[in-house]
């Protein structure tokens, strides 16, 4: 048997204590970025992971199916695939489906069956209710069909993840062939739960994705709270509650990012006591209403959906997060060096304070760009 310890640590000096690595990059003007760049950035943080999980989310990659929900599915066996495909056919119009393209590489083995489906919600479901309809169907697959897991279910985006180092996973999925205006990457160092394909980050529902470094000691509280709203946690990993929490607060309740941050990483009560009456009431109300979504424990996360990338660290910042800007580009990373390998020159770098979100937003299409003098 191959010694994993030897492969990962040729110096043979025992246990390596590491942590996860995060990376996000967005062109706020909407120009496409090559997948190759984020693979390079993640490879630079190889030491942060241990090869038991790597993954990416990419936005703007399916312009030919912009209106269809893109489902990325993982199957542990053919039976799961058969049942899921029958389920999809009975609840959606399947516009197109195919294997998720991948190439055989020496580094990645044991891959499950990986397929993608471009789905239209059948007539009869009101347009406003389509997202909720899709969430319900995702939960039904994850909880009701053995060996089938939905990696992502948003439009014009997708999650690509698995067991391996992120740059190897990226090559496996041929991500160098993709272009998107927003990319998120993750390198996993599993601590409490197994390293399996569904347990790699990002976690996703609709077009929302979350990558996470840290651990949520509040996981069970968060999970119970979310169950009341119909979210079932099936991925055996704490990060999943963040993805559903984001969906509940940002999509269903339409709360702004600043409020999302105030729920996940609220100020300490001492700090709230020093605020204005209005702010005190706001924070006290959020705690009373959404206390079950307070994320306790150390974390830094990157949350993304179409048009927006958000970085957030826990309120006492027990995990790293660096932000940088270069022209229209915004970067978030566990380490500055990973940003510098793809953008050696930066206009600004900074360390976000705990609980204060860094927000990158897609700019509205500029009129001057049409005039050709941009």
């Amino acid at each position, binding site marked *: 048997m191959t010694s994993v310890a030897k492969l990962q640590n040729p110096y043979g000096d025992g246990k390596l204590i590491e942590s996860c690595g995060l990376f996000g990059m967005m062109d706020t003007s909407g120009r496409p970025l090559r997948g190759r760049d984020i693979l390079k950035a993640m490879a*630079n943080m190889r030491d942060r992971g241990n090869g038991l999980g790597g993954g990416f989310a990419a936005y703007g990659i399916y312009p030919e199916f912009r209106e269809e929900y893109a489902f990325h599915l993982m199957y542990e066996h053919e039976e799961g695939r058969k049942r899921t495909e029958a389920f999809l056919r009975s609840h959606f119009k399947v516009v197109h489906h195919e294997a998720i393209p991948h190439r055989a590489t020496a580094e990645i083995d044991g891959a499950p069956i990986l397929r993608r489906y471009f789905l239209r919600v059948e007539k009869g479901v009101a347009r406003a209710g389509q997202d909720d309809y899709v969430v319900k169907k995702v939960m039904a697959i994850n909880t009701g069909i053995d060996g089938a897991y939905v990696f992502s279910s948003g439009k014009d985006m997708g999650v690509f993840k698995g067991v391996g180092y992120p740059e190897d996973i990226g090559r496996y999925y041929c991500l160098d062939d993709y272009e998107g205006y927003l990319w998120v990457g993750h390198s996993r160092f599993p601590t409490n739960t197994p390293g399996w394909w569904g347990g790699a980050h990002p976690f996703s529902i609709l077009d929302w994705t979350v990558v996470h470094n840290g651990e949520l000691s509040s996981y069970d509280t968060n999970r119970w709270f979310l169950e009341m709203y119909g979210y079932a946690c099936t991925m055996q990993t704490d990060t999943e509650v963040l993805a559903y929490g984001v969906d509940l607060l940002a999509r269903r309740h339409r709360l702004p990012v600043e409020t999302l941050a105030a729920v996940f990483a609220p100020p300490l009560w001492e700090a709230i006591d020093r605020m204005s009456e209005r702010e005190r009431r706001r924070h006290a109300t959020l705690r009373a209403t959404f206390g079950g979504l307070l994320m306790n424990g150390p974390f830094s996360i990157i949350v993304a959906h179409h048009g927006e990338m958000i970085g957030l660290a826990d309120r006492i910042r027990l995990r790293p997060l660096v932000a940088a800007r270069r022209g229209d580009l915004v970067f978030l990373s566990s380490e*500055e060096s990973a940003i510098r390998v793809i953008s050696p020159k930066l206009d600004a770098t900074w360390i976000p*304070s705990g609980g204060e979100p860094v927000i990158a937003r897609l700019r509205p299409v500029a009129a001057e760009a049409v005039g050709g003098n941009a």
Partner: protein
Amino acid sequence: MSRFVINARGVDQRDLNGRVRAAAEAGNEAVVLRNVHGQRYIGTSLRKPVKVDVYGTPGNDLGAFMDGPTIEVHGNAQDGLGNTMNSGEIIVHGGAGDVLAMSMRGGRVFVEGNVGYRCAIHLKEYGSKVPVIVIGGTAQDFFGEYMAGGRVVLLGLGGDGLAANFIGTGMHGGAIFIRGRVDPEQLGKEVGVAEPDEADQAFLAGVIEDYRRRFGRGRGAGRGRGAGQIPTEGFVKLYPRFLRPYGRLYAQ
């Protein structure tokens, strides 16, 4: 002066550190590292009085357990710089990340710009070994947390202000000097506030001059800071009110 240049692009951190060590042990007085891109532990446990210049972005734990060398970083540094460093000096022409100089035992660290969270956490001191940290910009929360000794100076240049909370929480030794305004609620419960005395003023004048020499000619936060342009007035001194702040909690 014998000078040894290493191109660090694509070099594994252990190989890189091995080469730095070999160059120092071969008697080179200076080692120049070019294209550094996140390699960790640069200069760790080095015990030679060698000068190491780092170009690029060094990785975490730069100069950890270092004993004697001078490391000059021409750019930003990441987390854990100077971890448990014993002697020598680290100069950063830029900013640095979290947990800077954790448990540092001796030597000096100069950062031109800002630092992150938990800078100088559990800084130490024993006899003549008094670590000194000078930061040109500002710092974030838990600055000087559990500090057990040493001197930390925050010059407040660059205009970012000091928004940090929990400054000096659990502090039980050493002194923090902050130029500019600090509100009582930003401080840990174990911290007292005083005006710097005459000896403190002399110390501050000395480190300000040292900061000016290192960064006065650069393009960063320390630009153009001639001698005397950073006033030695306007500092507050934070000191520990108790020798064993948690003794009442745990040792009854």
